[in-house]
């Protein structure tokens, strides 16, 4: 998907420059592009966020609905992911073209968030075996310019972090044993998720002898294999996955995990700061929206 044709000499130059910690756009190997985050962009969601990373543009909307817990996890809520590759991003996604990429990303997301600590799923349970919150996380790719995974994980974290509108619910049982769900009348009486440990994904692309973070499409075209590392703010690693058609030698995997951990850990604090600032502004915040 998303092939960029590069001439051979362009590839050679790109690979050689990377050796000297130089990249085409002037960044060093461990630098991200400029990131823009805006939360609460879609009003019908429980939480939403839009992230722009270079020209990559992601919109995430989370909707909370009540459903049944999975039988093997009776006292936990669940997260469901769906990634839509819209034909807006590139004509290759038209029809069923983006489906493969969409499932690949969604499956990776399930693995990234599938652990005890990243999202407190127990707090999403209302009554064990009966009712729980299901957070439907829908990811929309509006524009693709490389490094989709990192941008998506930032957007999901931001969307989870916003004062989510998951209302408080009480289960009432009458004498006949039937249960009723009672919603709180106060719209501000909401449950807030603990998102301290929600991981961020860092994708490292192996180019020549070195690896770079936040690769553009051109850089990605020069790399045969990349490693996806998801890191929490405390530095624990929740998922590692090799993507791409090539192989990596063990030593470089160890190095990439180390870089991934360092970069990922550093990614959390600025995001948290910005979101806190945005929240403190409250309603006075100037909304940028989609034309900004």
């Amino acid at each position: 998907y998303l092939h960029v044709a590069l001439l051979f000499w362009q590839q050679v130059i790109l690979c050689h420059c990377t050796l000297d910690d130089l990249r085409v756009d002037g960044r060093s190997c461990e630098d991200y592009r400029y990131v823009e985050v805006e939360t609460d962009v879609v009003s019908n969601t429980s939480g939403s966020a839009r992230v722009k990373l270079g020209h990559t543009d992601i919109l995430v909307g989370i909707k909370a609905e009540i459903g049944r817990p999975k039988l093997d996890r009776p006292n936990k809520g669940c997260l469901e992911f769906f990634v839509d590759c819209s034909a807006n991003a590139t004509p290759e996604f038209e029809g069923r073209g983006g489906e493969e990429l969409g499932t690949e990303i969604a499956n990776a997301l399930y693995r990234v968030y599938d652990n005890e600590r990243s999202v407190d799923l127990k707090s999403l349970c209302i009554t064990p075996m009966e009712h729980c919150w299901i957070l439907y996380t829908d990811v929309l790719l509006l524009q693709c310019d490389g490094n989709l995974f990192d941008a998506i994980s930032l957007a999901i974290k931001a969307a989870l972090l916003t004062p989510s509108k998951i209302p408080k619910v009480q289960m009432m049982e009458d004498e006949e044993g039937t249960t009723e769900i009672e919603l709180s009348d106060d719209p501000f009486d909401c449950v807030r998720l603990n998102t301290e440990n929600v991981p961020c994904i860092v994708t490292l692309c192996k180019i020549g002898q070195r690896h770079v973070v936040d690769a553009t499409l051109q850089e990605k075209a020069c790399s045969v294999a990349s490693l996806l590392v998801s890191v929490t703010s405390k530095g624990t690693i929740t998922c590692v996955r090799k993507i791409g058609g090539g192989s990596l030698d063990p030593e470089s995997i160890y190095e990439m995990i180390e870089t991934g951990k360092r970069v990922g850990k550093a990614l959390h604090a600025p995001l948290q700061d910005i979101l806190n600032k945005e929240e403190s502004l409250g309603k006075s915040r100037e909304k940028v929206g989609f034309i900004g």
Partner: protein
Amino acid sequence: MPVDTKRLRGPEESQSPWLFVEQEQQSPPDEREDGRRKGQVDVRPIFARCGLVSQAKGSAYIESGKTKVICSVYGPRETERKDETDMKFGRLVCTFRFAPFSCAKRCGWIQSTQEKDLSMALLGSLHPGLCLHRYPRSQIDVSVLVLENDGSALAHAVTCASLALADAGIEMYDLVLGCSLRQEGSDYLLDPTFAEETQEPATESTENRGGMMVALLPSLNQVSGLLCSGDLEQQPLVEAVAACIEGCQRIYSVAQRCLLTAVKKKNPPPDG
């Protein structure tokens, strides 16, 4: 949810009664259920054989503990879809399936998301080992069926598929071997059984738990697939990858011998 209308179905939803049984198992420390040691590169004995599906170009069967995997390879044949990359490189198509009765919980006939995910992981692991540039405009189909899942299904599927590809005479850079690992605190369990893969921790602490699968090209010493999820610190993670690589090396000789037997059987040496 896609609904299967072609086959006779039971009720919309049904559960195995075993799911409701409270499970309590306390294995003594240092010892695993089958007598293997924790924290040691101790893979289950492997039985592998090539060439059992006569219609397929190549096939292989692997049994490790109670995990049983069968794989057949068809092709290279002309591709159905054609785009620019297909003109230069062959296309590898992998299908990973659990037989409906293979797991503790019955699997449906329709490919589930988990199976799709594992198919992609299988494809990613096999791809670096194949000389696909030797097969322009063609497609190679690999289908893996897990007959019985007693843990480490993906790892054995990778090994099994690469044996089948070799048996089919597809040009490869190297065999691809897979090995799984389960991390429990400071200990790791190599080649875990299904019970070990899914067990709940004895303690509440959730630190350093996770599962991992590594695919290795053994003679080139290149990692072609890495899939890990859980909650791991960097140090145990790196050690776990190293342990998996060693585990892959352990089964290399079995895989080689299996291929040798298959070749000898196909082309019996002249008498005398």
